[in-house]
């Protein structure tokens, strides 16, 4: 039932006009973040369950070997995919990824790829053979801001990923030969625009009320951006989102460990 959408939009907007948020947060505050590395470490070389408020996202890293892309013969390969599992929300349906799911996957991918987070140059095994890194983001419980939750989960999982052993032409599952080389740690930060206000880390109710959102993924630089929604941003608002992304990125990066 979409009652939430209709009435909550007004309620959230009224609160915002009084400079308040539904859960009492400040406009530039994230919800409580819980990071659980190695959540499925018996099979996946890397994994991380992130709880961002009530949103729960599990990122798993799978490693394979294969041919590099012909235009980058010495680089490893990375690929990101996201599944909006129907377990996560009454609005998610079984079936192939829809545009929302694909957008989340591609935005998270860009953040990681453009930052050069995975040192792909170090993934060459031998001539015409490289490591292939699969990032699979499994949404389990949707309470808003899947991009940030997924992006943080993916990055934390990557930081804790071990490369399997590769011997005599095959992968030895369950045995490892070192860590996945990570060069830097991009963190995405999504800001929602409601009226004239900017709110970091929108909850699901706030997503109902928002006119637009801007995701900025940062390291020391900006590596990826994505504007979503049918509303618009002016330059000042965009710079505010960028500044928030650098600040929040720094905070959250500290929470990720290589333990």
């Amino acid at each position, binding site marked *: 039932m979409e009652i939430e959408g209709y009435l909550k939009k007004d309620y959230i907007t009224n609160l915002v006009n009084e400079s308040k948020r539904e859960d009492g947060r400040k406009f530039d505050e994230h919800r409580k973040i819980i990071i659980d590395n190695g*959540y*499925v470490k*018996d*099979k*996946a070389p890397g*994994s991380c369950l992130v709880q961002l408020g*009530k949103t*729960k996202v*599990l990122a*798993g*890293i*799978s490693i*394979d070997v294969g041919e590099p892309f012909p235009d980058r013969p010495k680089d490893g390969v990375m690929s990101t*995919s996201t*599944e909006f*599992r*129907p*377990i*996560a*929300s*009454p609005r998610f349906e*079984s079936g*192939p990824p829809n545009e929302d799911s694909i957008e989340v996957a591609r935005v998270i991918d860009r953040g990681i790829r453009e930052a050069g987070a995975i040192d792909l140059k170090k993934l060459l095994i031998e001539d015409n053979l490289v490591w292939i890194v*699969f990032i*699979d983001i*499994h949404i*389990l*419980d*949707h*309470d808003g801001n899947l991009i940030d939750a997924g992006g943080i989960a993916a990055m934390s999982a990557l930081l804790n990923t071990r490369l399997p052993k590769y011997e005599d032409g095959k*992968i030895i*599952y*369950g045995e490892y030969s070192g860590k996945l080389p990570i060069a830097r740690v991009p963190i995405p930060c999504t800001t929602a625009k409601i009226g004239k206000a900017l709110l970091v880390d929108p909850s699901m109710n706030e997503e109902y009320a928002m006119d637009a959102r801007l995701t900025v993924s940062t390291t020391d630089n900006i590596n990826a951006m994505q504007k979503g929604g049918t509303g618009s941003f002016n330059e000042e608002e965009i710079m505010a989102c960028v500044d928030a992304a650098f600040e929040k990125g720094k905070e959250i990066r500290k929470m990720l460990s290589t333990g």
Partner: protein
Amino acid sequence: MSGNGDLVLIKDGKRLDGRGFEELRDIKMEVSVLERASGSAYVEWGKNKVMVGVYGPRELHPKFLQDPTKARLRCVYNLAPFSVDERKKPGPDRRSVEISKVTSEALSSVVMLERFPNTVIDVFIEILQADAGTRCVGLTAASLALADAGIPMKDLVSACSAGKVDGHVVVDLMKEEDNFGECDLPMAIIPKKGEVVLLQMDGKLSRDEFKEAYKLAYDGCMKVYDLQRKTLMDSMKKFVGEGGVENGD
């Protein structure tokens, strides 16, 4: 499923992980773990990690699928890509479709579908980490999630596998035993009646060996049932104020 000459699965009466023939792996169960789903459960069983969410009864679209005499029960068993050694491409494969079917049929034997005509009850089984026996774990967790959702059922469904390894009949196969053993027999029962609602087998068993395996699996199911009951009882503690009403929330 041929025996592997190199791998010794049973040594001195103990299995690879040190268990006896009638011992189940360690199991942990929890309900109400998800916010959005009407009912949910999370089960860790050996190295298996399974999350189940239930939605419904809810409206069924398209309308021509509606049954005016009862609810439809839709079950989707899904392996996460990272849940197995070699990454599995997202999307249903034939094995998952078959498991979804037998799971759905097992649950349909107890869920009181006739109470909710024209609706659908959706059961989503997400295998986050797989290590043999996932359909039993999934079905066990699904039964918990349905109870957690308050969907009326005649009984719980409790599942457990048995098999044959190095000539011995054992309960609750782990991965190596499933891969290199001589038989895999997943089973599920409705405990009050003591009847079987899921039964599959592949491998080679004599008639006597089957009877032995059946008994082990059945007893295993009853042990699982005890744990399911305890889990549901524990989950109702706050509901009846056991331990007091907390001041914080």
